[in-house]
């Protein structure tokens, strides 16, 4: 075990990462839960989700975010919550990247389903930042996974 691994999987860091990620998701979920039609519009703007599923996704995704965020904050079922969050982040990154690649500038709707009007250039810049931010959060989820795996290994070793 290198020193770096030790620090990166240290419980002190893990608990903070877990709380931060949980808070991020709860904060992101609340405005969308309050106004589902606006968020459904955001989902529609991505032009990736088939029409029949736009509303269903607009309704359920914020609740998944909220429950997973709460699970991380409270430390209940945190592994499952972390996995779902990681999967969602991958979906977000792919969705934004597809639209960046095809030059379709949209508002991400990540934290605010009623954004102010922006220019195309501003939107593209924001989308790039969102991809970077989401990769950062994915790394946080990765840290949680790594730390839990290591602690499981340690537990198994000490049980022998």
């Amino acid at each position, binding site marked *: 075990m290198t020193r770096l691994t030790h620090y990166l999987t240290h419980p002190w860091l893990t608990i903070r990462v877990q709380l931060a990620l949980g808070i991020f998701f709860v904060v992101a979920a609340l405005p969308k*839960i*309050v*106004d*589902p*039609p*606006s968020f*459904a*519009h955001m989902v*529609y703007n991505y*032009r*990736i*989700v*088939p*029409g*029949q*599923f*736009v*509303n*269903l996704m*607009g*309704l*359920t995704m*914020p*609740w*998944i975010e*909220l*429950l*997973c965020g709460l*699970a991380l904050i409270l430390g209940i*079922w945190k*592994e*499952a*919550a972390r*996995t*779902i969050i990681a999967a969602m982040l991958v979906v977000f990154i792919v969705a934004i990247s597809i639209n960046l690649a*095809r*030059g*379709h*500038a949209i508002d991400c709707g990540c934290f605010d389903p009623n954004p102010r*009007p922006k*220019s*195309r*250039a501003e939107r593209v810049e924001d989308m790039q930042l969102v991809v970077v931010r989401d990769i950062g959060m994915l790394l946080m989820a990765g840290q949680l996974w790594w730390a839990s795996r290591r602690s499981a290994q340690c537990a198994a070793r000490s049980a022998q």
Partner: protein
Amino acid sequence: MDLRKHLLEAATLIAAAVLCAVVSNGIASRERKLALVGAYPNALKVPAEAATAPLETTLPSVAPMTATATVALPAPSTAPMTATVATTTAASTAATPPPKSAPAAARPAITTTTAPAPAAADTLKRFQQHPDKAYVEIAYGGAAALHNAGALFLDARRTSAYEQGHIAGARPYSVWEADIDEKVKKLFAERSDPEQQALPIVAYCSGGECEDSHMLAQKLWGIQFNNVYVYKDGYPDWQKRGGAVRTGSTP
């Protein structure tokens, strides 16, 4: 065994979230409710990027109204198949107010009010049914003429935006709220007489990239309204040019 537990927990979390979503939608107020199954035929169609045209730049495209042949050329790429028709009518309707509409952006409302207002019947005659296409886009000139002639205006924006201000006489028809289909059906029942069905209806939202009005027009067309217009610059343009507005939840 660990993996199974993990998946079970994840599935439970998702199921709980879906349950919360359905329950909260069930008890949500009319303005915050969504129909569970969406009906958005263009959900996978990526719109052609508008050349980041702010509102003012849409004026010149209306200005060339001399030859119909040239009108097709500057057709904005935003509107899919109706683009050419849209500009043609926009040009022809813009002809009623004084033809020098180019600097109109600088001058507010007076432009249209001073124009010799044609009799309502004449105006309505100019806006004939077009059963082959869902909608025809119009600019301020056309919208103002139709407004003067007493055409029905439908506001496709969210009800909260409607309450903050809307075109006088317009009704709230937010396409993103759950009761939209019900409202459209009601309107159809209200206008069951074929003569009334032929009357023009104008849908608008907030201009720019907003396509809620187009979505509403598609819905109206789907239920056999064949004389629908989309005021493409929408409420901000109307307000800027001093058209009559109202606030509150009633038309």
